[in-house]
């Protein structure tokens, strides 16, 4: 079932936390809402669930306008960061909760609880209480509980944030598998972690400051970000202010060759290039600067190079002879690896 935000605005005490969001999640699609805290992504999810009421705009599930429906009549599965399992109920009763609330026949409840627990690999734990389970197991139960009511829409609110890193990547694969098994379920996945969004989502909606900044497939956002925030938040790109003469671009005293279609001659623009696409030594687009910082990260070296007053980050395959701190070096990038964005504030550096 599709999820549609039709110009949804949410405000608390006159404070706009979600500003006229227009977004459609296609049936069976996984849409990630990606953004820093306070960007409005969780508010958008809660508007779909029915826990916040839009000040204006409509929320549609399929053809049905659910804006004025209470949560219990929306038929949505929801999983939150802290699991929110019912502590006094056994795993099987947690999973059966939604079915009992809907007055499902007993035999059907048994069948669907077993099915949901099977699907999440928790069948062996049916008789346990939530406190007897690890964090990852509890999150599986929460997912089973949400799936047991066979929702057409699944809302996941930072479902992996409470888990440690190793468990997180396992659960990520698990979620991808679940979605392959339930291809008709639309999933809205709220996260601040770009890796989760890139791995799992069919499309990513990037949110910041209560607004939708960009929306597209992970590849689109990564290769051709629409704005500086997206370039910085997804893939942590280098953002360098340049001027655009008739052809090419100029950064400091370096003349760069790249596709300047769309940029007016003489205009200021932001050059966006991914750190792992920056190479060491001579090449087509040369930038010369001083090594300010060098970090060894096992498989890679990260260099911070000061070029004409701006920092260029370069992720290089582990170097046999790494440049020294303060050394003057030259880095380069291929013309097709760079994108020109409208001039804006450069993103934060990580």
């Amino acid at each position, binding site marked *: 079932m599709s999820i549609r935000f039709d110009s949804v605005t949410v405000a608390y005490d006159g404070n706009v936390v979600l500003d006229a969001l227009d977004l459609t999640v296609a049936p069976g699609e996984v849409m990630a809402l990606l953004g820093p805290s306070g960007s409005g992504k969780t508010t958008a999810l809660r508007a779909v669930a029915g826990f916040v009421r839009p000040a204006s705009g409509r929320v549609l599930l399929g053809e049905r306008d659910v804006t004025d429906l209470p949560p219990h009549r929306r038929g949505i599965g929801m999983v939150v960061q*802290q699991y*929110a399992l019912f502590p006094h109920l056994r795993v099987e009763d947690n999973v059966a909760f939604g079915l009992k*609330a809907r007055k499902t026949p007993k035999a059907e409840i048994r069948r669907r609880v077993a099915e949901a627990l099977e699907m999440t690999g928790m069948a062996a734990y049916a008789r346990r209480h939530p406190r007897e389970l690890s964090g990852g197991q509890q999150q599986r139960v929460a997912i089973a509980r*949400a799936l047991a*009511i066979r929702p057409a829409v699944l809302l996941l609110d930072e479902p992996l944030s409470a888990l440690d890193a190793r468990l997180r990547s396992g659960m990520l694969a698990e979620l991808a598998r679940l979605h392959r098994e339930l291809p008709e379920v639309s999933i809205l996945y709220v996260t601040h972690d770009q890796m989760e969004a890139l791995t799992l989502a069919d499309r990513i909606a990037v949110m910041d400051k209560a607004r939708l900044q960009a929306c597209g497939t992970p590849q689109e956002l990564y290769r051709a970000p629409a704005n500086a925030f997206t370039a910085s938040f997804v893939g942590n790109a280098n953002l360098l202010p340049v001027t655009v003469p008739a052809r090419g671009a100029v950064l400091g005293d370096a003349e760069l060759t790249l596709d300047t279609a769309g940029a007016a001659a003489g205009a200021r623009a932001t050059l966006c290039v991914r750190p792992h696409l920056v190479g060491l030594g001579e090449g087509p687009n040369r930038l010369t600067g001083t090594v300010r910082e060098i970090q060894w990260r096992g498989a890679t070296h990260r260099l911070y190079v000061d070029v004409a007053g701006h920092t260029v980050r370069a992720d290089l395959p582990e170097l046999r002879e790494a440049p020294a701190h303060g050394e003057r070096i030259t880095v380069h990038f291929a013309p097709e690896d760079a994108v020109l964005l409208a001039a804006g504030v450069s993103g934060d550096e990580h």
Partner: protein
Amino acid sequence: MNTEPALRAAPAHDAAGPAPEPGRTNRTAPGAAGAGPGPGSRAARRLLWALPPVALLALFFLHPLALVVRQSLQPDGGGTSLQPYTDVFASAAFREALWTTVWIALAATAGCLVLGFLLALVIAFVPFPGAKALARFVDVFLSFPSFLITLALLFLYGRTGMANGLWTQATGAAHGPFDFLTTPWGVLLAEVTYFTPFVMRPLLAAFAQLDTAQLEAAGSLGARAPHIVRRIILPEALPALAAGGSLVLVLCLNEFGIVLFTGAKGVTTLPMLVYGKAILESDYPGACAVAVVNVLISVGLYGLYRVVSRRAGA
């Protein structure tokens, strides 16, 4: 900090059998250690600190209690016998007072639990302006003396109270219709009114601990509010309900001020019976016998509550 349980356990260990090794005899019973430095003197000092409270407890609580028990075993005729008890148990007045006490206490407790649960639900989960102020008022209410409520009820529903005044003015009748304050129902009303906040206090604390994400999860799973209250909130509030309910039950069993102030002549509870026997009839052994029974019921109920609550894993 870790060594404390071991130290505390040591004297009992040593007392149970011969000291197993020289190293352990250092930690011997506090009395034997003398004034010298070491763990023994520390234990002795700890015992010294325990002395004042124990002495105060004995002086102001245990001693009077013992006096009451002794008095209850010494009939006016002299000697020591169970005569006061057999007299008391044989009297219809006692049996009636016992029944009145128990049923009013049970009914008042039930009323407080239902009313307190509903009010606490509203204060905790229905967002309305002033909910916090109301919750704070519950705390203040707990500090009021019980007779104050009874007085307020007298002003409202007493024979010459406001409700009856309005009625007689409006209808010209000689008497108003409200004449229940001097019946057991009046006592029940006053006790429910006064003791309900005692149930609400622990409930509000429990509700504050409740994860709102659980309530939202239940809602999105298709549960309506009554279903959520019954299946999620109530089970998680059970320990708080048990704590508040047992407290109210014991307090109601021993309530004196409310019964006295309603002026209900027909309502004789055990504390009223003690008062009547001791002050009005000067039957001290009889009064003490009733008092001992009252204390035993209270302690018995408290013990039962502890056993039940431990079974429930609370």
